[in-house]
Each structure stands twice: as C-alpha cells, then as structure tokens.
C-alpha cells in the first residue's frame, strides 16, 4: 500500500487518537492514504465509526500486535 503519511498515536487515550487523525488527514489529498498507529483499544470502533461519518474509507486494520494499525483513504 502506498502510504502518504504516518501518524503515531500510541500511548494516547481517547479522544486524542481521533483528534490527531482528524488533523493529520487535513495534510493529505483525496485518495491518499494515512497510516495510524494507536494503543487505545477504543480506537478500533471509533476510527471505524468516524471514517464512515466523515466520508473517508478505512481500508485495513491490523490488530495482530499490541500497536493497532489502521490505513485510512481520504475521501472527498
């Protein structure tokens, strides 16, 4: 996957992972991909719900290690 930007939100508790993701996605263009790393378990359902409500696309989630990884494609 072609990742344009990576955000490290590890060690941050809710709401910070989403607050930072929201800021970071402003820096990339429509169609580009943001990779997010987080350790807050709540990030799974919240990132999924946020991408849906904000028009972005959650392409993939990796929950295999302690650091959760998300790939988000910026929408219109």
């Amino acid at each position, binding site marked *: 996957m072609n990742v344009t930007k990576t955000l490290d939100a590890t060690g941050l508790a*809710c709401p910070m992972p989403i607050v930072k993701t*929201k800021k970071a996605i402003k820096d990339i263009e429509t169609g580009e991909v943001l990779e997010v790393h987080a350790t807050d378990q709540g990030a799974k359902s919240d990132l999924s719900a946020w991408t849906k*409500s904000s028009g972005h696309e959650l392409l993939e989630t990796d929950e295999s290690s302690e650091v959760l990884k998300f790939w988000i494609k910026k929408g219109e």
Partner: protein
Amino acid sequence: MSLQPMKPSELATKAVNKEELFILDVRNEDAFEDWKVEGSNFEYMNVPYFDLIDGVEEIMDDLPKDKNILVVCAKEGSSVMVGEMLADEGLEVSYLEGGMKAWSEHLAPVKIRDLTDGGELYQFVRLGKGCLSYMVLSGEEAAVIDANRMTDIYTDFAREKEVTINHTMDTHLHADHISGGRALAEESGGTYWLPPKDAEGVTFDFEPLEDGNTIRVGETDIDIQALYSPGHTIGSTSFVIDGQYLLTGDILFIASIGRPDLAGKAEDWVQDLRTTLYERYKELSDNLIVLPAHYTATEELNDDGSVQEKLSVLYKENHGLNIEDEAEFRKTVTENLPPQPNAYQEIRETNMGQVAPDSERKREMEIGPNRCAVR
C-alpha cells in the same frame, strides 16, 4: 461555569430516585444503541465526540438550558473534552467519572430485610449491567451468592458488618459476567460452591452444590437450601433462604425468564426450563419472594432500589410463566432471541478457570448489558 465530575455512586442515586437528568452520550452510535446508562426519567442525546472536536455550536440549540447535563463516554477522556466546551458556553454540566467502564463496575448493597434471629439479607445491585448478587449475614458469618468480579465491595461490607465470608456460591456458570465467587472464597478462606453439572470444564477445586444441600450461616442457623432448577444452564440451581426467599439465578426474572442458549444448547434445555418454571417452582410456597440474579429494565427496580417480587405475583403477571402452549413456549425461548452477551464464550472460559485474562481485559469483556433474559 466549570465542569464538575459525577461519581458512579451519585449517578446510581439519581437512577434509583428516578431523578431527571439529561445525558449527552458522546460514544459512537453502535455503542450507544447497544448499551447506555438507564434511568426512568433520564433523557438522552447521542452525538459521537468525533463530530464535536471542532466545536459544540451545532448541538447548543438541542441542549436544555434548565436541566443538569451529564456527558458520558467509554472511559472519561472524550466526555471531559466535550464537557469543557459546553461549560465554556455557560451550561451547567458534569461528566461521568471513569465513563461507562466505571459505571459497569459500580455496585452497592440494598437491605432486603432482617431474617430470623438477627440475620440480614442484602441485595447488591449493579445498575450498569443489571446484575444482582446477595449476602446473607448471621452471627459472625456470611455467605455470598452470585458474587461479581469486584470482590472488594463484598469484603469491605463484611468487614464493616464484622462478619467472615465462609461460603460463596454461584447458581450457575455465568456467561455474562465474570464470577467473583472463587476469588472471594480464596480471599476469605471460605468454601466455593458450584453446581457440578455446570462444572465439567472447570480447572479448580470446588464444593459440588447438589439438590437438597443445606448451607448454614451463623449461630442462628439460617438455612440456604439448594434446589435443582435447570434450563438456563444444565446445572442451574436455586436457593431458598430462611424459608422466605427464592433466589432464582438466571432462570426466572421479575419481568422475563431465562434464555436456554448461552452454552449452545437451546433445543436440549428448553424442556428443562419449562419443567422448572411450570412444575418445580409451582410446587413451592406462593409466599416466597423471588430474588433473581438479573434485571433488564429500570421499571423492575422498586422505590428502595431493590429488585424483588412475590412468586404468586409473577405467576399472574410474568408473561414467560403464562404460555400454556408448549410449542409456543419452545418458540419463544429459542427463536428471535436477543444478541448474546459481549464475549460470552471467553467469560465462560474465564469462569471455568481455562483462561486467565488480565484485569483490563476482564473489564472489556464485561462491557455491555447482561442479555440473559427472554421477554
């Protein structure tokens, strides 16, 4: 205005006293639909916190100016963020300390009544999950039934009452919450009782709880009699306490009955459930007062915050006890069941001692309502 914290205990008082409160729940919509803080006179609004990061202007018109507002989220962080923005706008607002996680873990004793010769019976109400557990005290001894994971609540209460917990028992192998029975028995040097038919996969020692067993508490011999009453699980056992109270576990609730499917055997156990509810309990005294292990709706709470009702009243008013046709009964308890409780398999494995998750994982496994009933 400044943002104020509200403790789960303060929120519990408001729920029990049926006070008015406006709850702004800032978790995502799925989480809110699934499970929320329940109160007869609570009003709700759900706006996910991520829609409010840039400001609260859009919801200001929908918020009451003359009512206390409580902001709720999963753990606390997001409710503080949103709460501060609302306080800056001049609203009277507080946030739930520890969020839904802390709410799920809050439980407090309600006195049911005095028993023979100075004994006492307490119901521990866990509002966040609708779980009910019990402590019988007499002389210098106590027994705890269907203890929850937060064992310090029971040990603190026992210390306050100057009693030793000699016995802990579970009416069945729970699937909706992690039992505190074994840990509590270990901490206080007591005996842990479990129905052997529910304990096939259990990895630790326990005292088998059989039909007809009598467990005595204290000098005044308050009897707890075990009554085999399968249906929710194959081992489900009820207790008759002091000849006055019937602890039904997850077989019979106030407004509903138990579901037979949480161990994957709905078809096998539906007949057991029917026999327990329509024959076995019917042979008992009408005057017994039913004390269940769960409730579902706040309407089931009495004014004093307890959950209890006479068996005779339930035979008149509980729909699940009034389905004459067996086929229809079978259909009711095996079809259109509510979703299963969160992580119920992992909870069962934990209660059997097969897995030992850390305390953070245990908290997460218990997120959500109990869902043990068929309405």
